[in-house]
């Protein structure tokens, strides 16, 4: 079982002092949740868990701990984020030990919540089933029906870069085409698209959960906080909400790994991945680039080819 192997590996790394700490997942305090934990002794390794609720991208914590030698539990998408961060020189190359876990795809907890009436009190995973216990009600759900959409489209479930692999490699067979939400969105007319974007962004409360959950958002001064020049205001005017989402997504060009941490963090259930998926599609089409796959490939906006496409330029 992956969880057992994970704990053994963690114990090994910590007792041999090959890392100062390990960032992994622990049991959440609510059903459908796992929570990031930070362990420093072999005894604490038994707190590590591995399940379908390990949705956070733990690479976001590497910035906080970049003075230490860190072991980090990564899914495929998280591993690519770490590679992308290494390219951006966020830590020294030997500082991070990637404990890679081939991902069986994470569950969309918000979808599970919507599918069950009343409060969910306990959730148990049994093979391909999710057993949900509510108040006086037990519902059995098919795991496959509640996979997170981006996970269904994933083609890098095995960590591309890893120092250690825990668990057997899984078959890279996406269940949907890549960037499915962007493709769906593109079918709409321009007016419909703006209306959708406007409606989604109108719920935004500028909590920046999306920004903080994203491993690639680490600027000490984010563009929203810049006062000279002041790009935008911190109020809830529709235009500023749109500005924030446009730019935050755009700043992920060539850096996003489709982990979905942003969308999953949002308390107002704002759809966000259709924005970054488009940009991932673009860099693939225009520059044949995919984030975090090739550790030597330079980020696309920091380099060029003399024959880059320019049919749009007069």
């Amino acid at each position, binding site marked *: 079982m992956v969880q057992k192997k994970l704990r053994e590996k963690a114990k090994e790394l910590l007792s041999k002092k090959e890392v100062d700490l390990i960032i992994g997942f622990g049991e959440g305090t609510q059903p459908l949740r796992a929570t990031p934990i930070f362990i420093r002794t072999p005894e604490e390794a038994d707190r590590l868990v591995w399940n379908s609720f390990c949705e956070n991208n733990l690479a976001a914590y590497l910035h906080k701990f970049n003075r230490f030698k860190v072991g980090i539990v990564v899914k495929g998408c998280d591993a690519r984020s770490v590679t992308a961060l290494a390219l951006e020189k966020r830590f020294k190359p030997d500082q991070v030990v990637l404990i890679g876990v081939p991902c069986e795809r994470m569950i969309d907890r918000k979808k599970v919540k919507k599918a069950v009436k009343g409060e969910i009190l306990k959730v148990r995973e049994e093979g391909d089933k999710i057993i949900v216990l509510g108040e006086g009600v037990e519902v059995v759900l098919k795991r496959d029906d509640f996979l997170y959409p981006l996970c269904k489209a994933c083609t890098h479930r095995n960590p591309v870069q890893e120092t250690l692999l825990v668990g057997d490699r899984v078959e890279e067979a996406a269940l949907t085409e890549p960037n499915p939400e962007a493709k769906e969105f593109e079918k709409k007319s321009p007016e419909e698209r703006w209306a959708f974007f406007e409606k989604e962004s109108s719920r935004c409360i500028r909590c920046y959960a999306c920004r903080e959950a994203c491993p690639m958002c680490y600027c000490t001064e984010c563009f929203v906080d810049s006062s000279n020049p002041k790009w935008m205001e911190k109020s809830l005017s529709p235009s500023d909400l749109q500005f924030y989402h446009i730019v935050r997504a755009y700043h992920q060009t060539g850096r996003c790994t489709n982990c979905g941490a942003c969308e999953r963090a949002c308390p107002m259930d704002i759809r966000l991945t259709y924005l970054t998926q488009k940009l991932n599609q*673009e860099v693939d089409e225009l520059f044949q680039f995919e984030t975090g796959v090739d550790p030597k490939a330079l980020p696309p906006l920091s380099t*060029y080819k003399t024959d880059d496409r320019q049919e749009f*330029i007069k």
Partner: protein
Amino acid sequence: MEQTWEPKILAFLCNWCSYAGADLAGTSRIQYSPNIRVIRVPCSGRINPLFILKALQNGIDGVLVSGCHPGDCHYLTGNYIGRRKSSTLKRFLEYLGLEEGRVQFSWVSAAEGGKFSQVVDEVTRDIKKLGPPKHFVKHVRSS
């Protein structure tokens, strides 16, 4: 007298090529649409996508970004980087539903006074067809 709407278009021109080209258009007394407002930048690679977005938010009717032809950049590779930024930004904005043609890009060299005036005329025609921006503009109340 009927007043037709005249768009206001922001033109970011790179100092070494496009701005010089615009200047040549002027000294050659070439007539072209008076709708652009020029901002001179050192290089088309200097353009931060936030410039374009801020301009659109402030209510500008159109944006033109113009630089040196590939291979001719005064800073050697600035326009190549600018090209990548421009292509990704343009596609993203159009994906969101902002009208195609509101943000445009061109290569104009210092010797192409004629081309510059043509580009401006074209862009102005396109923006006139699109009309004033319907989305994203911010109006700050002051009373």
